[in-house]
């Protein structure tokens, strides 16, 4: 067994005059491990949040950090990040070695039904979201039949495959509350639509390449729609006080895990109107 020094896979680069970006090379360790390293570094950065930190954007294999030009320069930021990486080295190695153990532990950890009545009470400890999806909804557009045909499997098989995996949130972005989940079983992998839809309805569960995602709101989009979830992916967007104080939370955060389960059309409708 080759011993990998994970520190050597991490690189800090300039992004702009007030941003640096930390990359983790995923070629030897794979996307999921690289993303776990990003999560550890993000957590380490926020644990003792430096006063100069303006923004941070974790993504698949990178972490963008924006700092205040008033407070620090590149040298100070680089020095702190190097220190963080050194300090996190133990945790990274531990996580990476225990990766399989971590996944097992997670699945028996606090799995909770994400139900609309207790959405607000989402705690950081809950790392797996079980998300209901209606795969047979006649009233809204879907590509389920087309996906089944293209992949030469039954529609039920598409649903089973989609529900069989536990997906990791690799990144959020594109629009508020939009989470990139992966990796999709290879049996379902196919390129994006050649012509994107101008309007993908809110709640659409879609797949493209080796990813799956939920559209938190109506939006243009080029992914294949296979179902709809009745869940709200953003909280408090209608509560003026929360918005003004900035307390908008996305259901899915980087590093969370997601599982889908099928619901019937009547369950879906009850959920939407409850």
């Amino acid at each position, binding site marked *: 067994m080759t011993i990998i020094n994970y520190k050597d896979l991490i690189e800090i680069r300039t992004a702009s005059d007030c*941003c640096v970006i930390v990359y983790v090379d995923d070629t030897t360790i794979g996307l999921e491990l690289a993303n776990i390293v990003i999560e550890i570094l993000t957590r380490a950065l926020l644990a003792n949040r430096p006063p100069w930190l303006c923004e941070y954007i*974790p*993504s698949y294999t990178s972490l963008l950090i924006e700092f205040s030009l008033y407070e620090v320069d*590149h040298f100070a930021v680089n020095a702190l990040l190097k220190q963080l990486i050194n300090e996190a080295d133990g945790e990274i190695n531990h996580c990476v070695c225990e990766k399989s153990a971590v996944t097992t532990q997670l699945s028996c950890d606090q799995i909770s039904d994400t139900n609309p009545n207790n959405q607000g009470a989402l705690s950081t400890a809950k790392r797996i979201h079980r998300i209901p999806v209606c795969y047979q909804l006649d009233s809204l557009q879907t590509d389920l039949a087309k996906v089944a045909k293209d992949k030469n499997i039954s529609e039920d098989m598409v649903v089973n495959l989609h529900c069989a995996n536990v997906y990791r949130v690799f990144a959020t972005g594109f629009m*508020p*509350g939009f989470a990139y989940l992966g990796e999709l079983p290879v049996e379902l992998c196919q390129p994006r639509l050649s012509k994107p839809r101008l309007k993908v309805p809110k709640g659409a569960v879609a797949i493209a390449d080796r990813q799956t995602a939920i559209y938190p709101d109506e939006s243009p989009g080029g992914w294949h729609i296979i179902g709809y979830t009745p869940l709200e992916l953003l909280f408090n967007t209608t509560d003026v006080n929360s918005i003004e104080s900035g307390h908008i939370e996305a259901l899915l955060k980087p590093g969370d895990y997601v599982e889908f389960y099928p619901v019937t059309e009547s369950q879906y409708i009850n959920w939407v109107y409850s």
Partner: protein
Amino acid sequence: MATGLSSRFTDLGRVGHKHKGFTQSGALDTNSHMLANAIMRVPANNPTIEVLLGGFKALATQDTEIAVTGAQASILIDDVSQPLNHKIVWKKDAMLQIMQPMLGARNYIACNKRFKTRLFLDSCCAVTREKTGGMNFDGKGFQVADMLDYETGISLSTASTNASINVRLTQGAPDNRLIVHKTLTTMPVPATNLATVYVVRIVLGYQQALFDHKMHARFFNQRFTVSNEASNMGIRLTGESIGQIAVKLYSEGIANGAIQITPSGLPIIMLAERQTIGGYPKIGSIITTDLPKLGQCRPGSIIQFEECDVLTARQEWLLRQMRMSTFAQNQQSRNDNNE
């Protein structure tokens, strides 16, 4: 991306919400925005009105004072021309017009009182793409006949905001001459320099090592033209392709002013309303000090890139901030003496 004519409230944008996928937003020419507020002796982050390519008309329902900064445009109050970058008096029932700019693209209007706005994530900015923020939280700018209120209860109404360029040109043609006013102070006004050719400095970064020396040379040794696809999200440039790099990247965080190179080998400059993450390769980013210039670019403007190191970039920015705050303090004491 599309260029639309718009006017709407703006400020310095949202801070600390990008990890949730919310864009930054805010004034594109932050320098003119802050200058307008400095002239009116109000805090730098007070809301101003951002007017894109003129065509703004509004009626005051109370006496008020304003300052207009930014693009070189004729400013008229009841057909009497008014100076740019100065405090001007706007009487009740008088019509304010901001005409099609001769140079530059955006004007900023600040008032002596705080406009009444609604805050979304602590910013008054409307973001069309997200359908968030703005007066109705729907991401839209001003509509004809909107009433803009001061927090004190005084109000003015926008008579017309969405005139098309063509209509505006015929309407405004006779008044399109440039007005040069004597500066009232010996201190230079820290206004955004307007030009037809903008030299913008960039720090190399991101995937810059993947671009070979020929591509670097093509990038720095040509003048790019701003295309019609220019908005607060970003500016797509046209010119000679710098070449392609065959690399598939995972989406990553996009810095303000980051320069993406598209598969066709042409740059897109990412600005205030950019999406938070994206997967095109980037050669570097425009320095913070030079970003306001992009707010004054319009289709046809010429852009020339110049390399800069991070330390110079930071010094330039600190100097600009110092110049602005000194101006604001001076303005404060000068006004105190006059009153």
